[in-house]
């Protein structure tokens, strides 16, 4: 059920927030910063205006995949977890804690990136994105609208194909992944073409668009925009210390200014919660 009385940020504010969060997710590999950002993103998702279920399974798989790859591919590190006979090609030898931690930081970064994109896709509608674009960028708008529709459509396509593969004698689980690639690609391409036809048949990009539900810029949007700016400035001026588990297993604690600027990204979630608790019909 949608939260009918939840506060709504302007799409532009959400996009600014997402860009700042993505910048941190893609550049900061310090585990303390990553853990803080993970908490902020989770808290923002759980806010009162969430609309759909979060794809937890996908986020966990994306997070664990680099761990598995790093563990299997790296033989360096002073803290062995276990060893496989070296006669086994590629994966034989010592499997180390350093490799697992290195993979974990990459996995968390990947998970965070996807989570932020999913979060922004749930908060900013396709209509909002199209409305933000000036006329010369309507072509870009079509691509963006397609991109926004891509994730849920692809998930539905994968589900449909996996379902019928079992009874048809196909493999299941991860073993099925390579054989799914072409069917999913074909189906997604066909749907994209239909989508493009629908956009064109309904007059998109014909003339300057007007807006049925124009979004109003409110003071909270300015606060969210400022919070995003603070996070970016903090990242530039006081970046969290890099983390390389192969040279030092225990990560360094980031400077206070670095963590404080990162905390600014929590402001939209805090504002949403505060407004929903103090809304007149919530008393």
């Amino acid at each position, binding site marked *: 059920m949608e939260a009918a009385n939840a506060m709504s940020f302007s799409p532009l504010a959400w996009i600014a927030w997402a860009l700042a969060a993505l910048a941190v997710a893609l550049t900061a590999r310090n585990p303390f910063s990553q853990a803080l950002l993970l908490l902020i993103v989770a808290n923002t998702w759980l806010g009162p205006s969430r609309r759909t279920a979060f794809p937890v399974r996908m986020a966990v798989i994306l997070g664990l995949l680099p761990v598995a790859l790093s563990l299997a591919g790296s033989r360096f590190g002073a803290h062995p977890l276990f060893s496989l006979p070296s006669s086994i090609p590629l994966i034989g030898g010592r499997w180390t804690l350093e490799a697992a931690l290195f993979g974990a930081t990459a996995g968390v970064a990947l998970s965070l990136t996807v989570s932020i994109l999913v979060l922004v896709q749930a908060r900013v509608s396709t209509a909002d994105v199209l409305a933000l674009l000036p006329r010369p960028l309507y072509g870009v708008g079509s691509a963006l609208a397609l991109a926004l529709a891509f994730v849920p459509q692809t998930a539905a396509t994968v589900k449909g194909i996996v379902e019928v593969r079992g009874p048809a004698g196909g493999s299941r689980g991860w073993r099925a992944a390579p054989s799914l690639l072409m069917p999913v690609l*074909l189906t997604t391409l066909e749907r994209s073409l239909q989508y493009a036809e629908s956009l*064109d048949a309904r007059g*998109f990009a014909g003339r300057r668009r007007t807006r049925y539900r124009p979004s109003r810029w409110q003071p909270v949007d300015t606060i969210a925009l400022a919070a995003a700016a603070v996070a970016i400035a903090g990242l530039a001026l006081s970046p969290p210390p890099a983390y390389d588990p192969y040279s030092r297993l225990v990560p360094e604690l980031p400077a206070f200014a670095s963590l404080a600027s990162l905390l600014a990204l929590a402001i939209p979630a805090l504002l949403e919660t505060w407004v929903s608790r103090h809304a007149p019909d919530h008393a």
Partner: protein
Amino acid sequence: MPLITLDRLTFTYPQGKAPALREVTASVEAGEVILVRGASGSGKSTLLRCLNGLVPHHSGGHFAGRVIACGLDTRRHPPRELGAQVGFVFQHPEAQFILEDVESELAFGLENLGLPRPLMRKRIEEVLDQVGINELRARRIGSLSGGERQRVAIAAALAMHPQALALDEPTSQLDPQAAEDVLQVVLRLVLELGMTTLIAEHRVERIAPLADRVWTLHEGAVAQAAPRDALSAGGARPPIVDLALKAGWDPVPISLAQARPMAASLRARLPAAPSNGAVREPGAAIAEISGVTFSYEGRRALAGASLRLGRGELTVLMGRNGAGKSTVLKLLAGILRPQRGRVQVGGQVGYVPQDADTLLFKATVREELTGRQASSGLEPWLDRYPRDLSVGERQRVAIAAAGAGCELLLLDEPTRGLDPGAKRELGLELRRRAGAGTAVLVATHDVEWAAGIADRVALMAEGEVYADGPPGRVLSDSLVFSTQVNKLLGNGWLLVDELPIGPA
């Protein structure tokens, strides 16, 4: 002056070996209703897509002749300009939506026209009432049923105040009740607004009485005639026309209302009830579900459903959308596990889902069938790309691929989008398999087709099977799940072929 003119229109798709449309010359006057019919692949969709410029602007290909729609030459005006003049409703309800909720979707076209906000609001309120979807206005598109989506798609097209509306098989993906709802909307547009409408439809029985003319496509060429003449001549037509021709009624009625006065004398000549021949003994059980309960994320799909399937038996499962038919099939296929109750299957299972395309991804039909027993009738297509085949042909390849060597064949809505000829072929194929000892279970909304092929019909509602027996008993005297012949004659008569009559 006609609203739409097609002048010697010939069109060939890129890499097409033969033209999809050949020398089509026709016109549509304002306020006319045109029923477009023809077999799958005959050019119906291509013809409608020419009206709003999707052909050739999106399709590419070789386009000769011209189409003038509402004064605009479609060669010079792209779909985004023609879209405001010719509203278009696509075949697949899920393929046409851009935005997330109904009201935004209705506003999308109006925003593209650059209309001021008060005018948009006025048009949206009007169209919500015209199409009768006001209760859906705040719903998310993803939460709508197929019928609701098609009504929203019609409303979205209408909101732009087009001069004509083109509907490409708008009910082919819907159950009978949802199809009826959509056709009621079309009926209202035609009768109350005088909307110029071109509608491609296989279920001609609802549209034919409204149509001013019927365009029948065959291999890209169009033959035009008045509805009665066109339907009497052949092609897709209501069972009531077949009945009239068999009984020698003149004039030939094209609706139940027209046929009722003539039916009284026929009813008097018929035996009290059809002789259904020897009742078929059920084969040994191959699968059984008993007392099965299943929910999807809290939404109850099955509530103690029970069903037994026998070898060599063709069973049809019917019920409105959401009744639990697909869930029964998925449980028997092993895709889902029962949360309560028991599912037992004693043989190899073949499963063909609603969208048969999800089974076909190889480069050729031959590759799709590799390692499987060759199926007769597919030889002409063995070296073709499966997705280039017509809907009916793809369905047959999917059945051959998924159902090879199976003892229990499960098919979910296999007649969606099939023309009458393809449906007949499919019915024969399924009867052949049942005759060879395969248990066949088909979930379908197609009452006429089901009545013609089934040994047994099971009706579902609210996650339970509430009626189960021979078609003559289960489908007789039902308001929704009943054939046209039964609605007219009652007494267990379902099909024209079983009536012991000749011309009066």
